[in-house]
């Protein structure tokens, strides 16, 4: 029996529990366990990736109950890819949090982080629709805890919006699942795929409603317009390591869209074929536009980075909306880029906020800060990655997306929007960067009022006393190299992704693996 699949879910849960149980007040111990655990999970997910690379789909029947009656975890190329990405990001985020001392600014940072990981891994690995809901809950509540870590009035306010909006989404998720269960009598995703494939025409209405409700639920997570409203304040106010980890949270939504709308409501399903693609396409184009406009119009770096996250989800979902193997493969490449690039941007913005004193993330000229050159370099790199200029992965990703959508019905519009909005981003980043890093503060200009909610509340360790700047900077530069590496290794990576999407668009193998696991 191969138990490795479930380890990324169970190990973080056990680690988090052990940390709460035995080392609540021992930060050093927590750090050791936390990072070691994350590294172990990274190793395991890489191992899972190697297993999945062969193309074989592994099924893990929880409680030894056969599908569709029990819950199954399923490891295919896509879930393995997402798990590796998550684990990699987690290691970076944990190290960064330690390097900046963010984990000292509130209680339970490390346990919450691991609970969060448990939720993300569970969402990527589960093969059961209701179980997906459960893991959405796990990652929602843990992310709420992380989001309001270190407190501050503005942050708490943003956190409230975040959790309320996402609870609306959870409620909707239940409605969607109820509808689908009411029609098909099952919750296992492979079984749903089988049954919906044979659905009588009499039930098409409910199936369509169920499908669109699920799409909306995932769209909330993926910050697709007009359900993205929770994101800007949340990301802008969240503690930096958390915002960086959130780079994978939006991808959970994108992942769920890809999974559900290739497996269950595939592009060949007549009941929903005309429904999903066009909706996602239009919404994603709007998302990209609003995101890029937000970058240009942002008043501070936090919001700029938040809108950059929205914009990158727009591009990603434009590719997803193609629902062809090529477009999906492009979407997956963009997913990897956007995750690493998003984390890079948030950490860089955090370094600016922390070292710039009262000026924090405001787009006002301030004094030269410590490590000015290094932070400026990082910002330049992050901006290039986000705006999609060479030589980083954003450019390659954009090219692949454009190429994959060449034959899409609205190819000209898509190209125009993707390229046109890039220009907006270039202008936005150029203005922000030159103001923050180049423009000298006018002589005698007073420092602005400290921005609450962006840095630690008073009485807690502040940025200037970074315990280990070398560690923090290494992590951020590491992410920059990762983004560059993703571009350099685009050949082999897209090779794997092409196989991944081929697997997604031939769902019979998945269904057979789950339904006939024994």
């Amino acid at each position, binding site marked *: *029996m191969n138990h490795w699949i479930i380890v990324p879910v*169970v190990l973080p*849960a*056990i680690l988090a*529990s052990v*940390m709460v*149980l035995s080392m609540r007040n021992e930060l050093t111990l927590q750090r050791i366990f936390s990072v070691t655990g994350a590294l172990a999970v990274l190793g395991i997910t890489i191992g899972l990736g190697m297993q999945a690379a062969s193309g074989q789909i592994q099924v*893990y*029947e*929880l*409680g030894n109950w056969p599908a569709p*009656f*029990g*819950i199954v975890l399923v490891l295919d190329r896509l879930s393995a890819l997402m798990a590796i990405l998550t684990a990699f990001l987690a290691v970076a985020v944990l190290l960064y949090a330690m390097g900046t001392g963010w984990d000292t600014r*509130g*209680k*339970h940072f490390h346990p*919450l982080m691991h609970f969060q990981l*448990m*939720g993300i891994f569970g969402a990527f690995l589960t093969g059961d629709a209701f179980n997906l809901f459960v893991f959405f809950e*796990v990652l929602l*509540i843990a992310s709420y*805890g992380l989001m*309001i*870590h*270190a*407190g501050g*009035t503005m942050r708490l306010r943003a956190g409230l*919006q975040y959790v*309320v909006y996402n609870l*609306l989404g959870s409620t909707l998720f239940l409605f969607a699942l109820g509808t689908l269960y*009411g029609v098909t*009598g099952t*919750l296992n995703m492979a079984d749903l795929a089988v*049954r919906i494939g044979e659905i009588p*025409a009499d039930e098409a*209405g*409910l199936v369509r409603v169920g499908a*669109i409700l699920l799409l909306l639920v995932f769209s909330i997570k993926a910050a697709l317009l*007009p359900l993205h*409203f929770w994101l800007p304040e949340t990301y802008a106010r969240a503690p930096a390591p958390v915002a960086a980890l959130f780079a994978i949270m939006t991808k959970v939504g994108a992942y769920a869209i890809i999974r559900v709308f290739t497996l269950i409501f595939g592009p060949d399903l007549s009941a929903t074929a005309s429904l999903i693609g066009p909706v996602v396409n239009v919404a994603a184009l709007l998302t990209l536009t*609003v995101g890029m*406009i937000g970058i*240009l119009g*942002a*008043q501070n770096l936090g919001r700029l980075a938040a809108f950059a996250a929205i914009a990158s989800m727009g591009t990603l979902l434009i590719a997803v909306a193609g629902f062809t193997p090529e477009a999906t493969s492009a979407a997956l490449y963009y997913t990897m880029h956007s995750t690493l690039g998003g984390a890079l941007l948030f950490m860089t913005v955090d370094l600016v906020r922390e070292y710039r004193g009262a000026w924090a993330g405001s787009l006002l000229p301030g004094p030269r800060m410590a490590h000015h*050159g290094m932070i400026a370099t990082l910002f*330049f790199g992050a901006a290039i990655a986000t705006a999609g200029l060479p*030589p980083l992965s954003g450019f390659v990703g954009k*090219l692949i997306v*454009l*190429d994959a959508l060449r034959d899409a019905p609205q190819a000209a519009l898509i190209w125009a929007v993707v*390229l046109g909005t890039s*220009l907006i981003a270039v202008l*936005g980043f*150029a203005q922000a960067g*030159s103001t923050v890093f*180049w423009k000298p503060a006018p002589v005698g200009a007073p420092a602005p009022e400290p921005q609450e909610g962006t840095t630690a509340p008073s009485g807690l360790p502040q940025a200037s006393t970074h315990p280990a700047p070398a560690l923090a900077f290494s992590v951020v530069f590491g992410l920059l190299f990762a983004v560059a590496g993703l571009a350099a290794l685009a*050949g082999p990576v*897209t090779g794997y992704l092409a196989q991944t999407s081929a697997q997604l668009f031939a769902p019979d193998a998945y269904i057979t693996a789950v339904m006939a696991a024994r």
Partner: protein
Amino acid sequence: MDILLPVIAALPFLGALLPGLMIRAGRATCASYTALSSGLAFLLLLICAPTVMQGEVLHFRLDWLPALGLNVTFMLDGLGLLFAGLIIGIGLLIILYARYYLSHDDPMGQFYTYLLLFQGAMVGIVLSDNILLLLVFWELTSLSSFLLIGYWTHLPEGRQGARMALTVTGLGGLAMIAGMLILGNIAGSYDISVILTQGEAIRDSEMYVPALLLILLGAFTKSAQFPFHFWLPHAMAAPTPVSAYLHSATMVKAGLFLMARLWPVLSGTPEWFYIVATTGLVTMIIGAVIALFKDDLKALLAFSTVSHLGLITMLLGFGTKMAAVAAVFHIINHATFKAALFMTAGIIDHEAHSRDIKRLGGLRRLMPVTFVIATVASLSMAGIPLLNGFLSKEMMLEEAVHTVWMGSYYMMPALATLGALFSVAYSFRYIVHVFLGPVRDDYPGHPHDPGFGMWAAPALLVVAVVAIGVAPFLAEPLVRTTAHAVIGGELPEFHLKIWHGVTPALFLSGTAVIGGAVLLAAHAPLMRGWLAAPRPEAKVMFDATARGATRLSGWLSDSMHNGSLTRFAAIFTITVVAAGLWAWGGAGIGAPERTMLPIRALPAVGWLVLIVSTGCLIAFHRNRLLALVLLAGVGLSVSMAFVYLSAPDLALTQISVEVVTIILLLLALNFLPKTTPIESSTMRRLRDAALAIVGGVAVSALTYAILIRDFAFDSISAFHLANSYKGGGGHNVVNVILVDFRGFDTYGEITVLGIAALVIFALTDTVLRGPGGRWLVRWGAGTDEAGDRHPLMMVVATRVMMPIALLVGVYIFLRGHNEPGGGFIAGLVVAIALLMQYMASGFAWAEARQRTPYHALIAAGVLIASLTGVGAWLAGRPFLTSDYGYITLPPLEKFEWATAMGFDLGVFLTVVGAVMLALNSLSSMARRRGETINIYPMDINPERPDSPPPPPTGPGGEKET
């Protein structure tokens, strides 16, 4: 030799690492190490040169992203060789020049790093054999040029110029991405060597015009063609070495390079001719005219560069082979004299401390060396015989004479001569107004010739200017090789020579020189007229557009995301309902399959209670206490519904959850205002009411639609019913589903509960340490609280109930697997029992009697659940696989055990811990607010002698101390 190509391209990038480090060893060392990498690249290029000059083309290929067609493929032919030679060669001169130009305050390491990055990108463009790879390098030049223009970060002109250049060239670059993708698709490959063989197919394609327009947009923005020319003069805010290098000799020629590279494929159509030739012509004239009226030396040179770029573009646009040869030749000539001129402008600025022509003049005697260099270069720019500028300008005029534009034979030569005429005028002005005339005594600095290091580079270039001018055959092999690469076929019959006989071109050239001289003579009145005339100011327009776009974006973005949660929720509701309706509208469902049940009295009453409670809740929701009571009513009605529908597990769960949440909410009310204030307008509330009704109706309709029809397939629950005992060892199917069939869900959900408690704790902790805590202290303990906080009766009653409740909890826990109950309900029941103790005697008193920390309870719960699941691995089964059996413990009867009980224990502990930790958080808020801690179980105890008398009631009552 092919392997040298990637090395040549990579050397500047690798070299870019050096200056930043070597600056620590001093400026001279830094400069020489920078020159080292460039010099090495130049050497390697020279090694390749003979082969290329013989007509061979070097190729190198490395797969990068073959699926897309983006590969690292390099090619060195004549065109590439010329450009690479110019880029690296002039680059070396610039490195030398900058060594003396940069002041001690300028960060030299940074400068050279940027410069080498740029050099690498530029070499990459001209060596690329793949248009996508070319795009990569293309954008890199924009980025490095951004850094170089903004190098003097304290200058607003530098920052603005950098942004403008990046935006305009970025616009072109993005358009070019689309153009290249289309072009590659038509040609079936992104490799230039393949594309060059597909000329006819490309020109015949219906996508030819879009591809052409998009690619030209890229080329025109980069090469500063009208109407995108405006960024170039503003890029002159950069240090002069940058202006000389990027904005005259190399980067701005990238657009020309691209047009030349794709010339065999794209040219030869009317579209090409009219777009490219006309743009070039207009740019040439406008640039020349403006240049004449610029007082800033660098602005003069910038617009003259614009003009000359226009000239070359026009030649490429003509589409004839001879025009292409002339274009190539002028590229060489312009690079030599213009770079030299920029360097002289830099020298003047450096030594005289001004670049303003009005403040200069008479420098001839003070700066003789500079004077000679500048004069030769200027005369070449004016097209005076025996200098190289003359030769290519003659060729240009000759081609113009043979060109018919819109049916007119005279238009093109006349306009080209006009451009040449202005070109002569500003060239002469550079000599006459700067160097000639009387020596002044009001220079801002003390003009004198610089050291050899600074004038060596321009001098070398001027030597080339004269050499080619006097002996054009020297340049002929290079021009031939390059032109061969551009044309891609047989070269026309030509020889570069000084004297072509009396041709129309010679006549036009003479006209231009004389006219130019006349124009300069009339400069002063013309200048007054120019200054008086209204002119569109590009920078103002660009700035206004950028600022407008930024403001508009900010306004759009901020007013859309204004932080109003109700608005977000309203949009959510509308979206969900609309999308659902739309999805429904496409299909619908069949006729009802189930018959309606008759309405019975009992459920009708329950229904009524539910509806009335809900209605009242809406009506009275501003009174928070009342709202809670009504909410409890709703919860109770739902529990009753579960009882009626034979779902005892659900009913038990619902009831106990109700009790716990209501108690915790009641405690939380302590820290909230008593009533909810009215914050929104009537219209707003009407809108919200309408939305709520729409949402409610939609949900009801959906539920109704589901309920009237049977499952389309057999539901999976039949399996659960059949296997509950056989496989799960329990008769209570609900419990077996919770802990076994779908134990993994439960595992997730108890984790959610545990996390929630931890979050509440962490949140409380942070809030109390921040402004929230200070606010609580200021607020102080409530004044309108009951005097007897811990009443005797309640204390006694809860003490009595405690063991009973605990026993009930254990009972519910143990029977859970077969009868209604289970760990979750048991946990809630026990939590309620404990909660009552805390309520009766106060938190601190109760906590002092409780030994296990709540954190530990939660953690232990999740841990036990996890380990129970992992335990199955030992038996070789998947996570959470259960087992059960029977044991007989005398004197008891035989009873069943199941591993699921271990899991259920985890559930139980987590629930208890979570509830208690939430309570703990609330009580720590109360203590922060100043609530006293009681050491006795109850405040008033008749048995205790020191028991205080009952305090007077009412708001005026004294506070306890």
